[in-house]
């Protein structure tokens, strides 16, 4: 049974000057439970808008989007979100950040503490529970954000360029972590990225989006994520298949960018 279903999703923004921007046009897709979707596209193609709609922060101008048959009409616990900059609460410690969701629901503090410990273990932050978050490095902050989101046990995890602000080394480690979590929890994940490599590596499914109006340009089904679950990510990157796919997508995006630039000049 399909899990996340979007039908003819349209999003039109109106600027204060009265111009309309067609951010999303007739987006229709469906995602099965446990699938990992990566979305790739040049800037301004509506990736983040799509994610915000899925999270319930935005309401589409027309069309519908449902999660397990239920219409999405506002933010909710069943859809966890991980942001580019972490969006941690810097006045709280790691523990307090991670248990934020459970505290808001007034869950039992003892079971909460146990859960927090487990999740910190999974994301590799054991022993950092009492550290103030402003003292953490970028990678560690992203790990806290992951744990904070996952502890709520959401059906769908939305990641908005979660690894975009990290350095190359940390990024690689975090990519393995995302795959590990995907494998262990079996969650449905939508991950937005602007890195072609990352999209290929992590995506079981990959949508390449095109701008003006924002639409799904091309769909791929990819084997690399499953390979990456057990194998070495770097080996996968060297595979012929991977390289040719990467070149294909890069050319595609490059053409799109050129088209926009040409239009603008």
């Amino acid at each position: 049974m399909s899990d996340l279903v979007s039908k003819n999703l349209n999003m039109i923004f109106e600027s204060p000057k009265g111009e309309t921007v067609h951010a999303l046009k007739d987006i229709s897709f469906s995602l099965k439970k446990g699938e990992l979707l990566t979305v790739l596209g040049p800037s301004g193609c509506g990736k983040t808008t799509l994610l915000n709609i899925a999270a319930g922060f935005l309401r589409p101008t027309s069309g519908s989007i449902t999660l397990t048959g239920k219409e999405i009409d506002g933010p909710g616990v069943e859809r966890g979100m991980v942001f580019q900059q972490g969006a941690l609460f810097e006045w709280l410690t790691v523990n307090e950040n991670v248990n934020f969701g459970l505290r808001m629901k007034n869950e039992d503090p003892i079971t909460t503490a146990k859960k927090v410990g487990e999740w910190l273990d999974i994301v590799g932050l054991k022993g950092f529970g009492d550290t103030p978050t402003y003292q953490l490095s970028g990678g560690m902050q992203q790990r806290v954000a992951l744990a904070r989101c996952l502890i709520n046990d959401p059906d769908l995890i939305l990641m908005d360029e979660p690894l975009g602000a990290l350095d190359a080394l940390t990024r690689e480690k975090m990519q393995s972590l995302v795959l590990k979590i995907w494998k262990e929890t079996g969650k449905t994940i939508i991950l937005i990225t602007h890195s072609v490599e990352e999209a290929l590596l992590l995506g079981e499914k990959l949508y390449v989006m095109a701008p003006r109006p924002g639409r799904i340009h091309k769909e791929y089904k990819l084997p690399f994520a499953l390979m990456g679950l057990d194998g070495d990510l770097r080996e996968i990157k060297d595979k012929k298949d991977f390289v040719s796919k990467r070149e294909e997508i890069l050319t595609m995006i490059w053409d799109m960018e050129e088209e926009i630039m040409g239009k603008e000049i």
Partner: protein
Amino acid sequence: MITRIFTLLIIVAVIGAILYGRRLIKTEKNDAVFGNPERAKGGTHWVIVGSCFLMFSWLYYSWDIAKSLYPDSANELCQVAKVNESLLSLKYLFPIEERQHKSTAIIKRENINIKKYIVEIQNSPDLENQDKEIFISLLNKTQLMIPTLTEEKYLETDIKHVINGLTNRIKQLTVSFPKDSYPPALSEEEENKRIEALKKQKGWGATGMEVPPLPETKTGLKFHKAAEELNSISDEFFEIRNHNTEYLRHSQEIFAEIKEYKNGLDDDQELEKTYIKEIKKLVRRIDYASIFPPNALDEMEESIRDFDVVQKEEQGAIRIKDVLLFPGGTIVNSGPTCAEDGPGRWLPKPSDTFRIFGELLRPSVGFKMIPMIWYEMMDVSKIVGFFLPDWIADILPGKYPVHNSAGKVEPNFKSKVLDIVTGEFKAFKIPVPTGHIWDSFLRVFLGLSLGIIFGIPLGIFMGLNRFAKGFFDPLVELYRPVPPLAWAPLIITVFGIDNVGKVFLLFMVSFSIMIISARAGASGTQLSKIHAAHSLGASRWQILRHVIFPNSLPEILTGIRVAVGMCWGTLVAAEFLAGTTGIGFVENVARKYMQYEVIWITIFVMGMLGLLFDITLRKIINKTIPWHGKG
């Protein structure tokens, strides 16, 4: 004594610190690069030098060093000032400190005046010719009268004798002044009187008197007596006039003519009246002036010059003390009033300041019968009565007791409750702080707290809600830009000069600041944090409480810090305007009575309290928002 030791300590500390600093520079390696910020770190010894320098300046410029080293110097300088003043009136007649003789100056001036009047009268279109003639003839006669004063032959022998006598007295003084025997001993009775008066005299710097005027030392007495003698000489001299018979003939004739002409004038002849009055004034001026023939006073001038030289020599060490230890001014300038003319007046001496500060701090003395800061025992009932509103008793069922036929009032439950809420019962006493400093502190505290309590919620509300922002913005923006003190007269009139008015004024100050800072904090919350909280399942209230509020804390705390400074400044000024307690009130009263020590003490106390507020807040800020600026 303490001042002397203290001055010595300061000098020792400065020398020691400088030597230590030099040694440190020698042992430290030279930097390869200029401008290394590390080089600005440390340096406690330079802090010592800086503080000592400041302290020394205070001691020196307030003339406290002079006071401690030579306690008599001010009194002696005051006597010198008396001599200077007395001499000045005599010197003034001659070209000693002036350019010309007094007589020359007067004659020159009045000749110019006569010429000016003649030209003016001749050219006047409104005067009739016959009047013009009379005026001009009068003026010419006046001019002719002047030589009768300056002609050697008219000078009368009597006057010559008087002048000679006075000259001899000055000469006599010049001779005897430097001698040890001067002044001649007083009779026993007079001496006792003098000593008695001296005993009543307060010391230098004592309250109400800057420099004691009566001479306390032998040198002082010498100058004091000389000044008395000079005063009597100049008094006698200024009584004599060179009104010889020839002069009198002229002047009486002129005055008679003036009188006759005046009597012949009608009431409406305003212009003529004005002119004749002016002419009469001119003649009177010459009449009053001490005009003598050119060389008649030469001998007197010489004797005054001689005495001046002698008295300056006699000043000796006093002059050196005056130059070295009384920077920025001197007591001599003040003349016989014996005041401190210079920083000694407005810069209180540290010794006096600390003594008065100590006295002000004593709870039994205080200022205007109110201690600076102390405690008083207050019955708990009063506090309870203040905090519990009276209507608690009113809303209870039943009625208040009515007196019975026996003329007694039986209390019931309702009246007993009333007694409690109005504080009319006996309980134990607890100490509560009181005094000027406490009052000021409490006002700031209350005004600020009210501002915080009402300002933060409204500010956050305005930061999140279009209606609140639009509705309250005009109100806040209308009153906020007005300087708080501009509101003070109105607020004090409406709410009274006591605590309520001031607290309300401070509330207004802190309220607007808190609104603006809380609003900036709330509206500056990153959307992603709110989104995150939303998708973690937080409710609206939880987001407000756990995300928006802590996120605005840095702005709010900065706002509080600003508000404290503003409140403190406004309060002191408001206490200047009206009130009966408070540190600003103390300063204002001290200003009226020119108690410079108290003024400086209040300035110091205010500075310390302001610093205390700021340090406390800085500590709180560092504790509560350690993440600030590190995100």
